[in-house]
């Protein structure tokens, strides 16, 4: 089976790879590009830890056929920090103990970024809705919701 050439933008940088037919975007990002921030959770669309932004829209990379992202812009957690500084959402997650085992955190942060990019001051219910596709088995969600609200309100330590 021949490989298929694929080019897209990965966190603002052009990348070109060869993928096997049927490869999902998560495998392409982790194994071919070396971006280990999106995680493999369920492979079924149930957990959200593989969430990435495709042209600014939240998608599940494990359910995205890699070949469909040619020419599009992919954002992952790896591109979130700004130079040596954490993104305000990352800082808020640290400040509010919103990461425990950390496995859901990449997906939670991308879902939160997708929300704040289009709605900078969401209500608590809107935050809950925004992360409703992301499962966390450690925190009970409250610290995550509080962290996202804090980041939205600018109440984050520098």
């Amino acid at each position, binding site marked *: *089976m021949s490989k298929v050439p694929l080019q897209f933008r990965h966190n603002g940088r052009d990348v070109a790879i060869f993928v096997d037919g*049927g490869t*999902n975007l998560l495998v392409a990002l982790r194994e071919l590009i070396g971006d280990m921030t999106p995680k493999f959770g369920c492979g079924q669309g149930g957990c959200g830890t593989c969430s990435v932004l495709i042209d600014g829209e939240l998608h599940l990379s494990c*359910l*995205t056929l890699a*070949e469909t992202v040619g020419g599009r812009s992919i954002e992952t957690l790896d591109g979130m920090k700004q130079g040596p500084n954490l993104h305000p959402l990352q800082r808020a997650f640290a400040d509010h103990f919103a990461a425990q085992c950390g496995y859901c955190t990449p997906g939670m942060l991308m879902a939160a970024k997708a929300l704040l990019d289009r709605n900078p001051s969401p209500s608590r219910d809107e935050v809950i*809705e925004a992360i409703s596709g992301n499962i966390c088995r450690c925190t009970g969600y409250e610290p995550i919701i509080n962290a996202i609200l804090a980041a939205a309100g600018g109440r984050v330590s520098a």
Partner: protein
Amino acid sequence: MPVTVKTFASASEAAGALSSDRTARYLGGGTLVMRALNEGDVSISTVVRAQDQALTRIDASGPRITLGAGVTFARVLAERDLGFLHAPARSIGGPAVRNMGTVGGNLFAPTPYGDFTVALLALDATVAVQGGFGARDIPIEEFLQARERQAGTLVLSVSCTRPASSEAFCYRKIARIKPKGGSVITLAAHLPISGGRIAGARIALGSMAPTQIRARAAERALEGRSLDAATIAAAASAAAEGTSPFDNALGSAWYRREIVGVHLRRLLSGQE
């Protein structure tokens, strides 16, 4: 196992490729086909895609609306003229799934999924499909009954009549996890009122049979009557008739039969 991905510019070319290859599946939003590939489904060796703009078209201006098969639930939610379909669209997945999942794919979603299709069944939708022998329109009920045999056809669009009023159509998904979760039961009711009486009642149920089905006994209890407490009680007690629910992790068949009438009564009487 690697699969061959075939991308076509037009839906008709994709339909041709789909009908001529038994191992081909059409890739819409990816939430069903990619999931199957991730689980190692070796029955799929070809994935067919179409980049036809007609598949993502929404026509919501008139009394009869048409949604291209590739329209996502996020786009349904962004369309103000499709307000009556917002509740079913919002009940599906989280934001990422709604950005990916499509109206056409939902027709094939096995239980406990396929909630949007429950709403379409209550609204007497028509499914436009293209197979090896050309395009045709199929009533959604007929489409669902033969769903297992539809793999070789490509769904182009779904159309339905807009409910006469916002009160005439109601929808509810019973899930254990809020705001997201698989369906224990999904209910949709379209009850047009003519001269104070229900004319053309349609009740659709999800997770009460292998595919979405109509609750015909409940419909008969409502037809020609006014929507009062006695009528609702009669419909509720007939709700489980003709259903064949199953056991799964979300609920047993017995539980589903016991509660379907309770939830139908609450839905029709506007209770939470």
